[in-house]
């Protein structure tokens, strides 16, 4: 009754536009260097999302610009459009299809989350202590080695960071590892990382913690197990008493892996 839309052509343009946008977007390495086993998994998820998002964006653009090109009123045309109030099939489609897409994304994310947080038995534990505006680190064991402003970890071994904040909330982020976790006063939080590239990185505080927030950084060194052992053994300081107290007193709120159910 009111003409047909060139649906096949519109879809074709949408797909072409999607391909063009996602080809460019996926070829760029947005998140920077990958230096942990979690990083490629997260970046793959991001790339899948970029492709899906490019499709959604292209669809909106094509629908909008086709309508503007085709249905723009001629100058002086004061008549009304066709009195179409809706189309149940179309409305059901644009309710159900996005639901399926986001649930797929949710399931995929859940899988990735499970994979990157899977704890292993021989993991190395490192204590992280944060205070305005400095980081320090402890290596629990009989020596309780301690170091300020810099820490080393061996490559290809899972590290479980147990985090303690002394004053306000800070957040532990190493962008190349794609891992971030808040350090919260009064509780112990945990982050799990398996670094897989030797190198020097930067630990960045990402939770506003006061005027020194921007400069609250620490050096991160990932090195071979042998070098790491040598470095730890050479450390002179031991974990100071206040920090040992916070390990003792902080409640562990996050002790169970994702699939253990929680309670």
């Amino acid at each position, binding site marked *: 009754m009111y003409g047909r839309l060139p649906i096949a052509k519109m879809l074709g343009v949408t797909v072409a536009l999607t391909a063009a946008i996602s080809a460019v977007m996926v070829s760029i390495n947005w998140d920077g260097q990958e230096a942990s086993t979690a990083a490629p998994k997260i970046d793959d998820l991001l790339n899948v999302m970029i492709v899906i998002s490019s499709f959604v964006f292209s669809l909106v653009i094509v629908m909008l610009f086709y309508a503007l090109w085709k249905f723009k009123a001629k100058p002086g045309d004061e008549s009304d459009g066709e009195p179409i109030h809706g189309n149940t099939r179309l409305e059901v489609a644009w309710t159900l299809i996005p639901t399926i897409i986001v649930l797929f994304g949710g399931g995929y994310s859940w899988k*990735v989350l499970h994979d990157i947080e899977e704890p292993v038995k021989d993991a190395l534990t490192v204590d992280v202590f944060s205070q305005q505006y400095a980081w320090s680190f402890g290596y629990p064991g009989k020596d309780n080695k301690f170091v300020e402003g810099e820490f080393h970890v061996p490559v290809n071994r899972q590290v479980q960071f147990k985090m303690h904040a002394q004053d306000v909330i800070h957040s532990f982020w190493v962008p190349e590892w794609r891992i971030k976790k808040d350090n919260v*006063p009064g509780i112990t939080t945990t982050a799990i990382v398996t670094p897989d590239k030797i190198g020097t990185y930067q630990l960045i505080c990402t939770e506003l913690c006061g005027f020194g927030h921007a400069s609250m950084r620490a050096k991160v060194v990932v090195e071979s197990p042998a070098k790491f052992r040598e470095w730890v053994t050479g450390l002179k300081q031991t974990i100071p008493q206040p920090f040992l107290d916070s390990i003792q007193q902080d409640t562990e709120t996050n002790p169970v892996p994702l699939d253990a159910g929680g309670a």
Partner: protein
Amino acid sequence: MVAAIKRPGWTRGALGALAAAAFGFGLVIALRAISDLPLYQTEQTGYPHVVVPLILAPLGFLAGFGCFDYWLRWAAGMPTIPEDHSQHGAKSWKDYFRFNTDHKVIGIQYICTTFFFFFMGGLMAMLIRAELAQPGTQIVDAATFNSLFSTHAVLMIFVFVIPVFAGIANYVLPLMIGAPDMAFPRLNALSFWMLPLAGLLFIGSFLAPGGAFDAGWTGYAPLSTGAPLGQSFFNLGVQFAGASSIATALNFLVTIITMRAPGMTFWRMPLLVWANLSTSLLVVAATPFIAGAQFMVLFDRILHTNFFQFAAGGDVISYQHIFWFYSHPAVYIMMLPGFGIISEVISTHARKPIFGYRLMALALIGIVVLSYSVWAHHMFVAGMFSWLRVPMMLTTLLIAVPTGIKIFSWLGTLYFGKIHTYSTAMLFALAFIVTFTIGGISGVMLGMVPIDIHVSDTYFIVAHIHFVLFGGSVFTIFSGIYHWFPKMTGRMYDEKLGRVHFWGTLVGTWGTFIPMHWIGMDGMPRRVADYATQFGNWNLLISCCAFFLGACQLVFLYNMIVSWRFGPKADANPWRANSIEWQVSSPPPIFNFDEIPRVVGGPYEFGVPGARHAIMAGEGAEVPAAEPSVVGSST
């Protein structure tokens, strides 16, 4: 002089504020004196001799200004003053500066006040971008920088975006449903006058020792519980803004439910009315949570309670749960009224009924329900129980579905229409669809826990919130202001300047906020006064675009002021719209309608031969009577 003191108004208001402040100050000093405490407690979190007067002075002002006069007389058993409507309507500009119970005057008071704070907040944004144009510290030190971005966000959120929608709806909504005014005009006036007080408290915090509040608009404990005095200004300002918001929402709910014109069934309400119904449902239930959170912080600060004092057994993370239980619904409080505006503008300028009207209304309700179940997605890296992240992720992703329905239905509305793009309102509405889609896409990515773990608290977040709040909410606000400007002022604005403003704003928005996604993913954290030199060039570009964006807003300001004064006279219905507010003169008469209109059909019946939305007074003879089953079934 005596008369000025007796009469409600500015003189009595100022005296009331002074008297209340003096009483509060005296009370604190006296109590401390008889308790043998030092008279002045000036630990940075203390200052009771400042905080108590700050609570009382605004109340004293409101009482003096006349906000409570009618109720107090009634409560005291005194004879009430018969309503002579002397506080109703505006004959000169001076009437906008007094206690006024006319919803149209209050609407304009709201809009002008909130735009004042918009420009104040914008000025702070310019300072922030000036500092960030180069790595290192050039213009402000790190502490001032923290104050600037905190105040910028707070002004924009609490005294611009949320209340400007209340202002637009205040003006338009009673007209749209065929009501002579809001249900509670005096409460409406009180709601408005609390708002500038909140804004003044936020800005006034720059005068406090230690500077303005600097813990971000989120004010996370324990950074906020230990922050200097300025934080208390924030805690109190939020109370006034929140009370204003809640009272207005109650007013809207009662107005919408009880004051619709005969024949205006729920399914005949324009979508702007649906949007404000949904928003009000969110406001009344969610806003008390932020009020509570800020009271708890204030009590921790000055009464030494231990809600968030971890050393004394307080729970730091619970602040975030309470805060976000309001503040996530708040993003919909800042978006749903805009959805309503876009529906009105697109339908009118495409000359088409809204595509899937009922699903559009249901999507709003769907968003309301879902938005209460997603708050902890702000806390994926906060250290809460790990399993809670998964259900919160799924609900977060699902909320994209009703939002997507709205986007597709607006696009569907354009098809087979006659799209007119001469109005700046329509340009902003069309651009909104695209920018908001980008904001929605980055929102879905952020909803996915693994991606969020990486980009949380980076510039990606800054990009996302500005795409949804600036590219989303603010675009809808501009669209609404342009759309109803002729109705509100009785004059037309300059479309040429409108176009300059539109294109400048569009380019400025994209140029400013798109690159922020990139530097965020690449490793630049948010809320930093200084950053790694590798981000220098991008930040310079962002700052230049931000200055351009800021300058374009001056075009808008100029256009609005000059057109309001000198613009050509507007017809009653310059956009040939169907809804009731366009069927009365521009601006509408003081009580809106000589006779309440009868609603006989849907609000968007463009192109339906002979269809009418409403029959106005004196028209009865020309139009066949509505079907009896519909007339009078207003509830």
